């Protein structure tokens, strides 16, 4: 932590403190409200138990399959050098900011009743695939998490010292020996954290369950909360389920943070490939095979949804453009709130570190714990809190922006806090010695070093918020929508063509927002 001699001014307490208070209100305050409303005295029904069971079993299956496929994929990428490797690595990062509903539409285009695969197997007289239910939920989760797991494991492979591969080559250790001495110990350390992280993501991925699950056999806890609120209007039941979801996320999140190493977004995964093993033909064939399968699995849905979207894009109904405006507003608001919270909290954390180290560290840890919070639980809590006073319909968009901001806060903080610490230690003292104070000091000495991470964080927050389909479903009236929501509504009424058009619009807008913010952060940097 920086040894800043900066005095803590009231403004730091007011701004940083209120940002922190807002975060606590959203994460813990909502849970207290839920506790208040929950049917704690009523036992869980058998159908509740089957919902909990489904949630856990599908997450276990999804995480296991993702990891099992990601390990050979990462190994192939780490030991092979070929044209297009860089492109694969770049696209592996895309699902993170790709709106989930868009990916699901793509998965339907490939795996749905009238998708490529069903068409293909129809030639052999085999009936169309039924994508809905357990299989579909797991398939979609595997689609989202293979890239994530692959990136985590690639980092593990990059962290093996190059000397160890050279040493192995020198000693004549063969491919099996490299697996035993280098790769297995690395995986031993990396797999538990990756597994838990993916498990957690699959437990709280509302969109997938909403679009592909449903019915008595394939309902997750979050989907059941949604149904209890929107269809049965049973606040007590929704609160009870939300408490269960919260408990599950806290346990899993805690374990994940304990076991997993931080994921770096920009760490060099593109280290030059230097390997002297695995030249035997069977390893080459296997690597080519796994990379081909995984690339087809990942790229085909994306390709099909974007291609199919081009023509409908020009005939979209007016409601879509209204929804687009809503989405942009929500995304911008969310980005501004997220970055403002991260900046004010960072400033307070750094200043507290000097005098009250424990308080500073506690604040930092609590902020990162938001990673484990379920936006859906927060949304349910806000619904329960605000309902007696105001119609949920009227606050749908602001609430969505706020919850999305809280969700991207851990990422923003992880980028902005270290940058501010560096800025303080590099430029802060010089500024102090020159007698700069308050805003002048911030604007001249600190801000230039923050522009880049702030731009990136804002872009990320905007893109994440743009694609989110969670809280909005709880609050939105039938005539208000964001782009993901309107897409979902089209998909439920089988307007797949129009949905593809919206998908293309959504992806273009969210990438543009990300690009503009990120570029904005780098602009001045490039001029100098």
């Amino acid at each position, binding site marked *: 932590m920086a040894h800043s001699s900066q005095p803590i001014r009231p403004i730091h307490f007011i701004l940083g403190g209120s940002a922190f208070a807002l975060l606590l209100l959203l994460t813990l305050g909502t849970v207290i409200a839920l506790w208040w409303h929950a049917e704690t005295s009523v036992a869980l029904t058998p159908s509740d138990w089957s919902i909990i069971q489904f949630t856990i079993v599908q997450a276990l299956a999804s995480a296991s399959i993702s990891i099992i496929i990601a390990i050979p994929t990462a190994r192939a990428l780490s030991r092979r050098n070929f044209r297009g490797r860089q492109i694969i690595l770049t696209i592996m990062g895309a699902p993170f900011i790709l709106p989930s509903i868009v990916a699901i539409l793509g998965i339907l285009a490939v795996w749905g009743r009238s998708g490529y695969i069903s068409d293909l197997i129809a030639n052999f007289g085999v009936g169309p695939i039924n994508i809905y239910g357990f299989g579909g939920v797991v398939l979609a989760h595997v689609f989202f998490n293979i890239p994530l797991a692959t990136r985590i494991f690639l980092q593990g492979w990059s962290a093996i*010292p190059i*000397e*160890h591969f*050279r*040493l*192995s*080559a*020198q*000693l*004549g*250790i*063969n491919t099996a*020996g490299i697996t035993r*001495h*280098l790769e297995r*110990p690395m995986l031993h350390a990396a797999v538990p954290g990756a597994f838990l992280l993916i498990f957690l993501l699959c437990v709280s991925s509302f969109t997938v369950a909403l679009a592909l699950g449903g019915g008595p056999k394939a309902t997750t806890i979050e989907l059941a909360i949604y149904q209890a609120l929107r269809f049965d209007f049973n606040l007590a039941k929704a609160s009870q389920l939300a408490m269960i979801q919260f408990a599950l996320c806290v346990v899993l999140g805690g374990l994940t943070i304990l076991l997993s190493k931080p994921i770096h977004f920009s760490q060099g995964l593109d280290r030059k490939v*230097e390997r*002297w093993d695995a030249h035997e033909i069977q390893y080459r064939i296997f690597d080519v095979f796994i990379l081909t399968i995984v690339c087809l699995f990942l790229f085909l849905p994306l390709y099909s949804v974007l291609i199919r979207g081009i023509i409908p894009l020009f005939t979209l109904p007016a409601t879509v453009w209204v929804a687009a405006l809503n989405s942009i507003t929500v995304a911008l608001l969310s980005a501004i709130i997220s970055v403002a919270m991260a900046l004010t909290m960072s400033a307070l954390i750094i200043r507290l570190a000097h005098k009250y180290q424990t308080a500073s560290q506690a604040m930092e840890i609590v902020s990162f714990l938001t990673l484990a919070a379920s936006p859906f639980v927060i949304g349910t809590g806000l619904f329960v809190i605000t309902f007696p006073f105001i119609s949920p319909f009227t606050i749908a968009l602001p609430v969505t922006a706020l919850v999305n901001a809280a969700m991207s806060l851990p990422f923003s903080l992880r980028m902005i806090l270290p940058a501010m610490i560096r800025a303080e230690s590099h430029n802060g003292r010089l500024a102090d010695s020159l007698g700069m104070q308050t805003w002048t000091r911030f604007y001249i000495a600190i801000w230039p070093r923050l522009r880049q991470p702030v731009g990136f964080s804002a872009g990320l927050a905007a893109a994440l918020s743009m694609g989110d389909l969670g809280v909005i479903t709880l609050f939105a009236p039938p005539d208000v929508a964001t782009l993901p929501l309107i897409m979902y509504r089209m998909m439920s009424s089988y307007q797949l063509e129009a949905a593809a058009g919206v998908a293309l619009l959504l992806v273009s807008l969210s990438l543009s927002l990300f690009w503009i913010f990120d570029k904005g952060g780098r602009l001045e940097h490039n001029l100098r």
Partner: protein
Amino acid sequence: MSITLDKIKLSHGEFTLTADFKIKEGQKVALLGPSGGGKSTLLSTIAGFKIPDIGRVLYNEIDITNMPPAKRPIALLFQEHNLFPHLSVEKNVALGINPTLRLSALDIKVVKDALYRVGLDGQGQKMPFELSGGQQQRVALARCLLRKQPILCLDEPFAALGPALKREMLDLVKEIVDSTKATLLMVTHQPEDASYITDQTVLIADGQAHSPIETTKLLANPPIALAQYLGT
């Protein structure tokens, strides 16, 4: 074993390195020069980790330019990461006998003897992290001792050690090389290390590896490139 670098040229972006000379069997040679000059690159080329763009590498007049590293008769010591962290000291050394670690009772005895020779008697069951940096390099040297390769390459393996400890390690290297009659190539940027154990020095500067010259002569009467580096 003699090593011939026949009109070798390597380039990587702006960086280029040329070399054209022969190192005779059993010589102890220092590769001396500023960092970034290409010392480690030259060693990597000899060990087979880098393939030259032009030219040939020969061992005993046999062309091995494209021979994979595992087939080359070289033992190599890096500055760090010479040990696998999850294997005990004894197993790390035993890799020098059998990379699959299937060991006979005799093998284990040989490993123990090697550890004794580098002054780590009875430390075989320890894990690498329990040892100091100098001790870890001794373990790696014990492994080189067992591999009995005719060429030993050291890539600044003692750069992180203090002067007294470094001298001790250099003595050990000298003893090993003399007893196995191996050819020694040692990358260093310290002229005193070069003069302490090597007979000849290859000066590597400005993208060129010069032919080996007797170390004492070279240091007594340094050419311009070396004088600039030494600051004399």
